[in-house]
């Protein structure tokens, strides 16, 4: 199995649109949709995928939402990629080695070319990363280069300050096809981060007019860019000179724009689009019977949680037992089965499935439904201040139903009053989170950036981490995270993080709810449709029938 797509994260509204309303059956035969009837294949066949209009120009370091990254991932290849079990594989790199996890040596494969014919060299990487990290170029993903030595010289923390240098001192060219990366501190899983889109190389032609290059990207990936008809479609065709492992088994892809998931589903049924990334709530109860073998129901590496606003008077210095109690008062099994129609799987820990270091039942009893114990724990911990909580969510993301269900479940089992705190849309929701105005609890979620368990712990619960919007802080945990990050090898680091995950129960930085699943489908025209850890279809593998 080749070609799981690079990890990347999805802007809230996209992933969350999955939640559902009515009741319905949910059989659990994951991986059913591998395409049962194999037909003759047209190797040059072109198929279409449902997407939305990319938010930003198609510059790799500027694309963080899912509509853009599915396209940039098709056009750009990075040094490494992951297989579906989360293991690293070399793509553009011959090797990525380190002795001390601090100084990394990258050797490139020598026969790679950009789509314009120029060779992919060490310079293509160094220059691209320095450009993307430079604050002058305003790339939204610039902070990803923060591990590299000299990052603050090109990206000062004060927005008004001028960058001190044009290049990061940590990047050094050895020869045309070798370069070294020096980090600020050891990071055993740094090589895993290199599979993220932001670490793509750029051709020389990019710098002449970066804005135009964002409209007409030239990459080094499995597909070549053809055209972008704004708000309608983006077309890419197979790159015949591609040297990577994930060579396309089809002629190309059309990324078709849809305004709603429902219209996309109608078009799938009438044969106007071939691959969907998700099914809208309205069609979830019927899609399995509509599509039969072509219905997809498969877990991917994302988790839904209820996060705690630790900066509020209510939860400042709260006894973790109270949060344990609230967690045990939630009947995850019933809610996922009824309200969410089997589109989620109850979580048993803080790290999602499909990443290195995932362990079952990491949270122990805390995620099991037990009203009696829940009540006892909350009492032991001194009770919920005010005996009343609220859960904030964005009303445009389809969260309302499950948030209400969770609230009811807590009230019924523990007697703690629970209200929903609805924000009109995603913008207003993030606004309240950034301004630290969340009143009590808020819905939160995390899709993997790279398939290592550190991504679900360090990036969420470390003091000051960007994903730590509830201001959770614990000195002991910070020290352990630091230790895990400086472990001698990747395996040791993963093991250290596994230990940390088991201890999270004593701190309860958030309440894990459930893991996400891909609920999607495809047309009769294509086969071999599978979905990667990030929930996106693996485009290169898809075969178009004759």
């Amino acid at each position: 199995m080749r070609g799981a797509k690079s990890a990347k994260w999805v802007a809230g509204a996209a992933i969350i649109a999955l939640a559902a309303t009515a009741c319905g059956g949910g059989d659990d035969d994951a991986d059913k949709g591998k395409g049962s009837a194999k037909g003759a294949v047209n190797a040059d066949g072109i198929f279409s995928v449902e997407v939305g209009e990319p938010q930003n120009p198609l510059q790799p370091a500027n694309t963080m939402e899912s509509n853009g990254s599915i396209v940039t991932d098709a056009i750009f290849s990075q040094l490494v990629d992951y297989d579906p079990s989360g293991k690293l594989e070399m793509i553009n790199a011959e090797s990525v080695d380190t002795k001390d996890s601090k100084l990394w040596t990258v050797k490139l494969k020598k026969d790679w070319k950009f789509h314009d014919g120029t060779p992919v060299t060490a310079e293509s990487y160094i220059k691209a990363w320095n450009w993307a990290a430079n604050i002058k170029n305003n790339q939204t993903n610039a902070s990803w280069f923060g591990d590299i030595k000299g990052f603050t010289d090109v990206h000062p923390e004060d927005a008004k300050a001028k960058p001190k240098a044009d290049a990061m001192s940590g990047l050094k060219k050895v020869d045309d096809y070798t370069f070294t990366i020096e980090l600020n501190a050891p990071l055993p899983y740094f090589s895993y981060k290199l599979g993220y889109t932001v670490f793509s190389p750029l051709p020389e032609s990019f710098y002449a007019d970066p804005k135009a290059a964002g409209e007409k990207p030239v990459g080094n990936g499995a597909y070549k860019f053809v055209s972008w008809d704004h708000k309608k479609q983006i077309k890419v065709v197979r790159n015949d000179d591609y040297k990577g492992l994930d060579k396309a088994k089809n002629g190309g892809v059309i990324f078709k724009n849809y305004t709603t998931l429902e219209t996309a589903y109608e078009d799938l049924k009438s044969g106007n689009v071939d691959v969907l990334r998700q099914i809208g709530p309205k069609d979830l109860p019927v899609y399995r019977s509509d599509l039969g073998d072509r219905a997809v129901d498969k877990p991917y590496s994302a988790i839904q949680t209820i996060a705690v606003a630790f900066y509020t008077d209510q939860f400042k210095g709260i006894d973790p037992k109270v949060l344990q109690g609230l967690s045990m008062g939630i009947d995850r099994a019933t809610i996922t089965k009824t309200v969410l129609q089997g589109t989620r799987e109850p979580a048993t820990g803080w790290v999602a499935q499909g990443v290195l270091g995932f362990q079952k039942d990491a949270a122990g009893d805390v995620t099991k439904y037990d009203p009696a114990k829940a009540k006892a724990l909350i009492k032991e911990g001194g009770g919920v201040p005010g005996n009343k909580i609220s859960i904030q969510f964005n009303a445009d993301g389809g969260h309302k139903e499950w948030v209400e269900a969770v609230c009811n479940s807590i009230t019924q089992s523990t007697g703690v009053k629970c209200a929903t705190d609805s924000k009109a849309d995603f913008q207003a929701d993030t606004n309240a989170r950034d301004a630290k105005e969340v009143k009590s609890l808020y819905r939160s979620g995390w899709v993997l950036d790279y398939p290592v368990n550190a991504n679900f712990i360090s990036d969420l619960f470390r003091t000051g981490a960007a994903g730590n919007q509830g201001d959770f802080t614990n000195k002991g945990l910070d020290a352990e995270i630091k230790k895990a990050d400086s472990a001698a090898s990747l395996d040791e680091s993963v093991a250290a993080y596994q230990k940390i995950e088991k201890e999270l129960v004593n701190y309860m930085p958030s309440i894990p709810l459930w893991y996400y699943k891909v609920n999607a489908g495809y047309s009769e025209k294509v086969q071999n449709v599978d979905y990667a850890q990030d929930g996106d279809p693996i485009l290169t593998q898809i075969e178009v029938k004759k």
Partner: protein
Amino acid sequence: MGRYVARRLLQMIPVFLGTTLLIFLMVYTLPGDPVRGLFGDKGVDPATLARLRHEKGLDLPILQQYWNYMTGIVLHFDFGDQIASGRPVTDVLGDAFPVTLRLAGMAFVIEIVVGIGLGTIAGLRAGRLTDNVVLVFTLLIISIPVFVLGFIIKAVFAFQLGWIDPNVSNDAKWGELLAPAIVLGSLSLAYVARLTRTTMAENLRSDYMRTAIAKGLPKRRIVGVHLMRNSLIPVITFLGTDLGALMGGAVVTEGLFNVKGIGGTIYESIQKREGTTLVGLVTILVLVYLLMSLIVDLLYAVLDPRIRYA
């Protein structure tokens, strides 16, 4: 007449400034920040955020932003760039407008032909069976919400009968736009029919009609020239403002049929707090409204020579 037109054109200036300022202020007061939205769910890098805001001029006081934007439009015909994609707003509008114009045009034609047709038939036969059938039909259309009607049309003609594709493709061909145009035009169609019917029925009893009949004019001339010309004044007023509404108010219909027009763009711009895109769209819609009401007023003089513009 010339002075009247000049005065109407001068009136456009305060209306234009007022509406754009209002929209600007409204978008500004919504919680949420368009640049923050670019970073999504996972937290931001404050330095990049601040720089992006500064570069787009979003850190200036709101009135100064408005001033900069308006001077850009007036002096350089520059509607600014979209915050997220960096595309010029004129490009965005240029993509969306032709589709909406076509859709609104079709809906408008359907509205006029069917609406006035039904209204005339009902008006001429006021109180008879045909009149009652039209009454029930229009009542039905007025009371069904647009999305329900759209859904029914899709369910019957696309899924049951398979006559049409459920959604409009990227080329937005005329044939594909027929179903959304019917849905979009249906509500106004009912109003047009009711308006025409009432004024027709009223005017039938007027003195000049009796005179025309007494003179022994052929029926076609009585109805076509004498009756229609007088009865259409309120209908034209309605139609004029309705064209503006068709262009701006197609959010539901466009979303339902996946039409990539103005309605969807407005919706998306509000969601993403894209003040500049929104103001650009609204400015053009305001111009459409003003122009249409000017044309309507001028048409009055044509239809009824008694109306004079001092």
